[in-house]
């Protein structure tokens, strides 16, 4: 009997060992900082810890679904999310190391924040209970406030941190209130039980208010229209590595928990929910793409484009049948890789950090004018990322776009398909503008360049690797599709 219990406990421990390892990393790095401040050592320790967690995740691949207490579940979906979160975090570590070299303030604490946020992401992808959802979201967001305002002597960074914090707090309040309402109605916080309780009640005004508020909280983090307003400001102001994390790991984790919520809660499958969400998806796609058109700031532009991309992703959620889960998986993989590439280039061009009064990063588009003639390989990475974001064939982004359209067509959601098509056409327009800017001959008013040795730095290698992966997956996506199918299956 006790053997069985122990075995179960061992299984559970094994299953959440990535999370434990990430948390251990935080502690080890913290102690190492207390012992002796060494920027490179901190970065290496963080990277080692995250890699160990990634390995643990891969070793636990065959465990199947493990219930770790009644609030956490480690299954294929959470491992999938874990891989994405950890990989993005690793990329951010490498980028941050180069970026922070020029920063005069304390540098090492950034890794603490980054790793804590990664732990939050890991909790979130395994959440199956409102408490873990909340805990994960907060653990993910709180360090982000600090990360965004890390270079707080820059007005832009400080502003972006404060904006994100204040608005996040409001969104969290809504999230909590929604949870409270749902709890009051159903008496449970477990996703599955919540779903069961709600499905027997049918359409109920409490459900609308509760689930609606809950979704507001999540939609805020995903910057879905009309809760997207913070995105461009925060993207623009935050330091490169922090924004990269915000755009990749943070969004992936939140979207996956939303997916889990949708899957387990049948109440979301009512028609009017789909209509509402469909409407939100359409305006998210259109608003994101339209507002990106006029941007002269690359980071803002990427912010708006991320809004649009989550609009595309919502299509899969709205349809929620057939290929939907695979679509989400594939789109997330391609989105993360592509975004890492794009933000990676921005961060590399902005590295090392230079103190200024405004925004320290090279985010205005004119910095990138004629980048090709100065840093051809970096430009190639950026070009690949832009093509992939635009969904051009032979890049990973195309596979994602293909799945989104396929899912919409399969379900005969013509409005959604139409919006994806129109949105992508508008997208082509501004992504190409960025690309053309890279190749222009005449130099911009002011320019920043990546250091000459960028490609030999860890961050540079990661960015190059990501771009290669984007191309490889575009040419031969079969492994990725098989993987995601297996996860979704």
């Amino acid at each position, binding site marked *: 009997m006790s053997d069985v219990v122990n075995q179960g406990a061992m299984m559970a421990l094994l299953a959440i060992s990535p999370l434990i390892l990430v948390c251990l990393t935080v502690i080890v790095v913290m102690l190492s900082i207390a012992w002796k401040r060494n920027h490179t050592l901190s970065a290496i320790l963080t990277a080692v810890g995250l890699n160990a967690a990634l390995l643990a995740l891969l070793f636990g691949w065959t465990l199947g679904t493990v219930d770790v207490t009644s609030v956490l579940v480690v299954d294929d979906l959470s491992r999938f999310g874990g891989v994405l979160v950890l990989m993005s975090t690793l990329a951010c570590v490498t980028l941050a190391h180069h970026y922070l070299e020029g920063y005069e303030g304390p540098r090492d604490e950034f890794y603490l924040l980054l790793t804590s946020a990664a732990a939050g992401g890991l909790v979130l992808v395994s959440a199956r209970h409102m408490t873990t959802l909340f805990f994960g979201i907060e653990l993910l967001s709180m360090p982000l406030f600090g990360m965004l305002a890390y270079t707080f002597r820059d007005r832009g960074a400080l502003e972006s941190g*404060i*904006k994100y914090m*204040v*608005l996040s707090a*409001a*969104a969290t309040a*809504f999230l909590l*209130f929604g949870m409270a*309402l749902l709890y*009051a109605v159903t*008496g449970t916080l477990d996703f599955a039980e919540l779903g069961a309780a709600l499905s027997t009640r049918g359409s109920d*005004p*409490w459900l*609308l*208010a509760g689930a*609606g*508020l809950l979704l*507001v909280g999540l939609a*805020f983090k995903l910057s879905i229209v*009309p*809760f997207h*307003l*913070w995105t*461009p*400001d925060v993207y623009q102001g935050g330091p490169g590595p922090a924004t990269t994390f915000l755009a990749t790991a943070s969004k992936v984790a939140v979207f996956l928990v939303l997916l889990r919520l949708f899957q387990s809660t049948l109440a979301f499958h009512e028609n009017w929910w789909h209509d509402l969400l469909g409407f939100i998806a359409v305006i998210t796609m259109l608003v994101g793409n*339209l*507002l990106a*058109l*006029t941007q002269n700031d690359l980071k803002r532009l990427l912010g708006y484009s991320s809004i649009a991309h989550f609009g595309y992703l919502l299509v899969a959620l709205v349809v929620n049948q057939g290929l939907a889960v695979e679509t989400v998986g594939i789109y997330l993989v391609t989105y993360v890789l592509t975004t890492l590439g794009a933000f990676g280039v921005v961060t590399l061009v902005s590295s090392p950090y230079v103190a200024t009064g405004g925004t320290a990063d090279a985010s205005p588009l004119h910095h990138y004018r004629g980048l090709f003639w100065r840093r051809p390989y970096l430009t190639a990475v950026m070009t690949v990322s832009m093509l992939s974001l635009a969904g*051009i*064939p*032979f890049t990973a982004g*195309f*596979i994602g*776009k*293909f799945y989104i*359209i*396929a899912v*919409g*067509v*399969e379900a005969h959601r013509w409005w959604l*398909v139409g919006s*994806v*098509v*129109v949105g*992508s*056409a508008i997208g*082509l*327009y501004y992504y*190409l*503008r960025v690309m*053309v800017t890279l*190749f*222009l*001959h005449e130099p911009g008013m002011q320019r920043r360049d990546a250091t000459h040795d960028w490609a030999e730095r860890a961050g540079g290698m990661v960015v190059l690797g990501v771009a290669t992966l984007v191309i490889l997956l575009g040419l031969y*996506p*079969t492994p990725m*599709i*098989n993987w995601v*199918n297996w996860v979704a299956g």
Partner: protein
Amino acid sequence: MSLPLIVLLPLLGSLVPLLSSNRQRNLNAWSTALLPAIALGIVIAHAPGVVAGEVYHSSMSWVPQLGLDLAFRLDGLSLLFLLLILGIGLLIILYARYYLAPEDSMPRFYAYLMLFMTSMIGIVMADNLLLLWVFWELTSLSSFLLIGYWYQQSEARRGARMALAVTGMGGLAMLAGFLLIGHIVGTYDMQTVLDSRDLIQADPRYLPALLLVLLGAFTKSAQFPFHFWLPHAMAAPTPVSAFLHSATMVKAGVFLLARLHPALAGSQLWLYIVTLTGLVTMIYAAYFALLKYDLKGVLAFSTVSHLGLITMLFGLDSKLAVVAGLFHIINHATFKAALFMSSGIIDHETGTRDIRKLSGLRRSMPMTAALAGLAAASMAGVPLLNGFISKEMMLTETLESGLLGGLAWLIPVLATLGSVLSVAYSLRLIRNVFFGPEAKELPKTPHEAPFPMRLPMLILVGLCIVIGLIPAVIVSGLLDAAARATILAPRPELQLSIWHGFNLPLLMSAIALAGGVGIYTVRRNLFNFQRQFPQRNALMIFEHSVRRLLQWTQVTIDRLENGSLQRYMLWLIVAVLFLTGSGLLDLDQLQGSRQPQPLDGLLLAGAGITILAGLGTAILHRRRLVSLMMLSVVGLMVSLAFARFSAPDLALTQLAVEVVTVILLMLALFFLPQRTPKESSGARVVRDVLLAAGFGGVVASLNYALLTRPMDSISGFFLDNSVSGGGGHNVVNVILVDFRGFDTLGEITVLCIAAIGIYKLLNRLRLFMPSSDSEGRPWSRDLHPMLLATVSQSLLPLALLVSVFIFLRGHNEPGGGFIAGLVTAVALILLYIARGVDWAQQRLSFQYQPIAVTGVAIATLTGLGSWLFGHNFLTSAFGHFSIPYIGEIELATAMLFDLGVYLTVVGATLMILANLGKLTTRHRPSKENEKETV
């Protein structure tokens, strides 16, 4: 199989030019031409088989999960297009060698060109719908590169971007259409799709599928109303235009119509949409071709017009019309490529393409003039040239069509009108440019271009004549094969010859020629007529609408995203208000089934005070001290409310917390300005008040509605198990230290960490101590009033005693470690306030950090202690002991745990408050300065 080679060779060919430099131009051109020439050879080697009726296939798996295979086919239709693409492509390579200026990068040009050629070949050879689509998108992209080749010109960049945006959107729509077809048929395999015509057309999804596919085809082939991008793609170098707009890019759309003809055509829907779109495009574009001044503009619009003609032919419900369409594809490619080349030569040699400036060029460039004249004659449909034959076929077919029922006569009439216009602009092109007086004031002195540049034209025009004279010999086989692939039936009987006898189509041709000449002679009137209309430039319209869109987005951005946090918060709250408000609207009635508790006067008064104080806090928020006082009233009322509703524990806690918080706020306020500056305008205040009231109303209603509805509470469990399970009568305390002991342990740990964090943060902070408030009134000189000092000192032992008392009774009566800790902390802080930090610290000479840490340690060890006895972490034990003189007392391990809580609370609170107080007293900059000066 050698089929993939046909695609692969040009793809490799796109790398070849990059190997050589820009200076070795001949080498560059020859090496580039080599691989497509081999591909052409392979195609020709397959040709006899295809003409004999063979269809070659080759397939490799690529992404099986998507149904995307690398499958290629070579049938009659592919053959026809392959010959055009590769043949004209090779001529273009030759032509471009002499066209490009020395400063233009030739390797780049050839690389783009070959890439484009590859994607075009991919389209015509694809044996899988999705593969076709992939190549389709690639043509959009590579044509973008080609059109924007002179990327230094913003005109070129804009034209290229417009072309890509339009064709890219059409492409995505087409993908959706293909996916639908794939769903209907169950596979994307081309042959299966082509064979399942009945299945597809019977399906309800046929309509959307058809519309989406046609959208793709029409945008690519620049059909009305998507025609506007094509004339602006003319910013491209002329060899590009000659290639893209004669044989390839725009032909992709009509190729798709032909390719999917077996599967999609034959319905009324197809007949009407395709035919009428084609007809409208043909006439519309022909009219504008007549009005353009730019040589390439004329050719661009005439291309659109001829594409309309081909589209119309594919739309008509007769097999002969399809054959005529295929035939016209060949003819149009030959004469249009030649004409584009001639315009390139003219541009190259004279420096302008403006028809108004050009004149009399036949003297300086006789051969170009002759060739262009022949090509234009073919375009106009002059007998003995190939254009004549296909035009004749077209006119015949329009007579046969049953479209529009009783108005069927309109079709041939309109078709003739199109031909009339076509003759007119062809005539204008030749007459104005090559005849008339010698042009003066040309940027360059015109002379004949080098012969190799004229050679491609010579070949093409030769083809025009040969096909025109002996069509049956030259193209019959090819046309047969292509028709077989397009209509999946042997070609209907057709006499490909020049002379069919006197009949109606011949008459129409004659009318077209005569009418064309007529219109040409009265063209001035036409120009005058057109001048009444505002100049309508497609790029301008497109750019205008884009600019409008941009302006709109800019306005939207300015309105929504002005960077103001308040604004963002506003939208967030409005959105939430809408969402929850609509939920409340669905509610039948706010009041639930549970009866509210009775109200009495005391309660009402309390509620009134709370509301007033809350309002006061908000209204007086600019006067911070007053506002803080109001806020403390709210806190006080809340603790009273707890007391009233039988929660004395909570009330005590709330009270103590309230005191500590207010002290903390006061300390912070000490360093801050006393007033908040006025920042909101009146309107804004009204807006905010309304919003706050609305939001508060909604949340309050939600709460009210919820609280009046029946629900299960878990308090019953704790009430039942408190004594038996935890050995205490104070349920709140038992929950804290026993049932939820683990939570409490976590909380005090967090509290301790937070306190250490604050301690650390404040450690190096130096704040200037204000000597007066913001209005200039000095603070009282008497920092430590005697009365307060005396009272606080005498109160300290009493307060400590009370806290011990509260601590001890906590398990059964209201009280507990948390409250006791707060009481102790408050008493000590009072001492700090009364006597100052320096004084207090001299006497309380111990650090608070160890106290807090010890507290956490005790609590943890208590939990671990239960392991010694073989129980789970934090299992509590309790027993009753009788002590002499005191009586029976109950001791529980929970008490030890509570001690940990107590110490942590004391340590943490004091760590924070004492340090905040210390900020100024010790390190006052002014004092330090004084010392230095002294």
